[in-house]
């Protein structure tokens, strides 16, 4: 019952997407640091944009990896990406600021690359998978996982330092108290970010898989998944950052999601065999 294997090609080469994704994600993460410089939380939405940039890069990496037919489904690639990414991200948040420069994103990238590289080596050589793109793909996906989680943290709490993720303020009878239980890590919202990212990274390739795969359609779907995740996370951020900043992130997410969703439908209509409403199954010879 095997299906004809079609070589899925076309579009912008993967190297370009990788470099563009890495650079824009890091830039957006550093832009959230403006929060600290201006002592507000208005720039948290850049965390969401970082997530989208990382997801676009990561979904294309999954496409490259899974095109070889790894034997398991596409979702497991997303899981291993974020499983390795969460470790790197949590350790990197400890390197919050070194000599006045926020080092966490760069440290996360390097750490995740090391973890991903070793995992790739283990999969390819010890587990004998022998897929040419495996080591590079797992390295990239690990970095994507770490940076996506860091982007979510920045979006929801306004920063990506360990102290910022483990404390939050609550107002009790007019007094502001520091609490650990209601923080991003204390409430384990990182679990939600983990799954939001893991499903969002593998969905675009999984949902556009097939002989009619087109790169622009898949990447538009990635952007749509990213904005949708940003929407959900922005709602969660109301518990952590000021209402104004959360509203900014929410509005950007809603507008971005509406636009990408509509564009995705347009592209799908372009690619579909037919776009029918209440029509019967077309007759095919012999069936």
């Amino acid at each position, binding site marked *: 019952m095997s299906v004809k294997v079609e070589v899925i090609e076309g579009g912008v080469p993967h190297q370009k997407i990788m470099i563009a994704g890495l650079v824009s994600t890091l830039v957006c993460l550093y832009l959230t640091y403006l929060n600290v410089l201006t002592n507000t939380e208005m720039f948290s939405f850049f965390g969401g944009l970082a997530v989208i940039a990382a997801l676009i890069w990561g979904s294309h990496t999954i496409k490259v990896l899974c095109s070889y037919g790894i034997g398991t489904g596409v979702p497991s690639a997303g899981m291993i990406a974020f499983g390795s990414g969460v470790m790197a991200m949590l350790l990197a948040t400890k390197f919050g600021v070194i000599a006045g420069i926020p080092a966490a994103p760069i440290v996360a990238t390097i750490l995740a690359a090391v973890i991903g590289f070793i995992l790739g080596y283990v999969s390819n050589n010890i587990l004998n998978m022998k897929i040419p793109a495996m080591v590079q793909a797992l390295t990239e996906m690990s970095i994507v996982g770490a940076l996506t989680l860091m982007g979510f943290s920045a979006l929801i709490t306004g920063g990506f330092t360990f102290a910022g993720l483990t404390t939050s303020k609550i107002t009790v009878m007019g007094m502001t108290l520091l609490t650990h239980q209601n923080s991003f890590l204390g409430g384990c*919202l990182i679990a939600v970010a983990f*799954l939001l990212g893991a499903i969002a990274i593998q969905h675009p390739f999984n949902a556009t898989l097939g002989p009619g*795969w087109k790169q622009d359609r898949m990447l538009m*779907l990635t952007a749509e998944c990213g904005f949708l995740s940003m929407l*959900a996370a922005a709602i969660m951020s109301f518990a952590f950052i000021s209402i104004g900043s959360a509203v900014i992130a929410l509005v950007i997410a809603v507008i971005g999601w509406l636009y990408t*969703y509509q564009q995705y439908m347009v592209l799908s209509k372009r690619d579909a065999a037919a776009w029918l409403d209440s029509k019967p199954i077309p007759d095919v010879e012999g069936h």
Partner: protein
Amino acid sequence: MEHIVFGIGITALTGALATVAGAAEDTESNIGSQGDPNSQVQLAPQMGFLHRIFNKAVAGEPPAYGLWCALGAGLAWAFMAMQINAVLAIVLGCIIAVFVQGVYATTAYVGRTASLSKFGQPVYVDILKSMTTVTMAHAFIAIFCTVTLCYLINVALGHPFPLPLLGLIWGIALGAAGSATGNPYYGKERQYQNQKFGAGVPISASGNIVRYAEAGERNSIDNGWFTAKIGGSASGICFGLIVFLELWRTVLFEKVSAGWGAIIVGILMILIFTVIDRYIEVWARKNYGPYTVAKEADA
């Protein structure tokens, strides 16, 4: 004593919620055609069998339900942190989680079908319009029940994990239990109704799913009542038993013999289920009999 009675009451309530969640989860995943049986829905057009089935290719059920439940739980947690009432927080959180689920379902259907354009499979917009809300409704029941039972476990029974992490754990467990129990029923019985009952689908018949139904062409909404025949209830019982027995043995026996009481009760339960399973297996062999005459025993 009161403490234990209260614990048992909450355990019973979570068991009931889990049963409903399991049934709704299986119904939802069959209406949307998610998970491993969906591979046939994707294969069929490639073999020339065009259809009007909803093709929801959103990962498998465990990770997908892990996400919806974790998202519902995380949003509920955030709302509660904003001092919103717990019940309202859970409802709002689940509504937003279900919205996300519905969007994922529509993009999956449109995406996969558009990629099968080479085989002439059309995208049916009316399927999108009719199926999406039905699958969202069932998903809401499943997600709401799971998030509520997580909340009860956290607040009333005192489990150390915070609500979002519990949502992740029980969401993945819900998806795994519902998927394991309900998938073969949908895959073999519904999709291959035209094959002989009482036997697996031969490999030569792959892709030849049923596409015509009682009144016109088969659509996925009817999978709802089909699942309710046995698949949904079985999934519900499966997940309900998992949650109830896990909580029951801990609440009642955790303090007995410094924790060993719960372990011994757990081992006993595993043995009981092993006996039941063996009974089912032997019953089938005896009552259904072999397909062919048994060959002479190999040396």
